[in-house]
């Protein structure tokens, strides 16, 4: 596709359920990032992939959060046993080169997660 695609665009889930958020980066982009953005706030870094490996997962808030990337392309962010504080917009970005953040990153429209 022409841009970074995230699905679903909106997700409402019950507290305690697991959710999976998907990110399709721009073809050829080796670097992929996940962020969490609460309403009107900045972007909280979650994890960075270079290819299929995650050299920096320091931002994952707890062991309920995990992410994987397969084939150097699609990435899935999984949140287990969701809590109300997990409610936020989850943004994905990709770029050609990850190290040092030297190149422009392109962002998806995000997934708005609401935990009720």
């Amino acid at each position, binding site marked *: 596709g022409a841009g970074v695609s995230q699905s679903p665009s909106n997700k409402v889930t019950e507290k305690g359920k697991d959710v999976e958020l998907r990110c399709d980066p721009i073809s050829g982009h080796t670097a992929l*990032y996940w*962020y969490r953005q609460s309403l*009107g*706030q*900045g*972007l909280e*870094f979650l994890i*960075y992939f270079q290819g299929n490996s995650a050299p920096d997962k320091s931002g994952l808030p707890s062991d309920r959060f995990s992410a994987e990337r397969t084939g150097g392309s699609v990435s899935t962010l999984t949140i287990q046993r969701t809590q109300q504080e997990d409610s936020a*917009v989850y*943004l994905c*970005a990709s770029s050609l080169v*990850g190290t*040092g*953040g*030297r190149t*422009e*990153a392109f*962002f998806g*429209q*995000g997934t708005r997660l609401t935990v009720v």
Partner: protein
Amino acid sequence: AQTVTQSQPEMSVQEAETVTLSCTYDTSESDYYLFWYKQPPSRQMILVIRQEAYKQQNATENRFSVNFQKAAKSFSLKISDSQLGDAAMYFCVLDMRFGAGTRLTVKP
């Protein structure tokens, strides 16, 4: 670890006037890249301008320019001739770490 600080949660500017958004950062690297991104109400993140640390010349993109002070670790964004479409959240970014953002309002 890199840190980015934006000390102005909100700024306001009159249409056609100039506004400067502040950013300071900390890094142990000598070669790095700094960015300003904007996020309008549509939520779509858009690159505004990029600065390479080894270049002394300040980057400029049309009405947008930066004042990059490497020794002071300061990276401010100047928007000239502000337009209504400039209203957005502006984020200062270092190594894909985002500052808290500055919400810019443009008054007609």
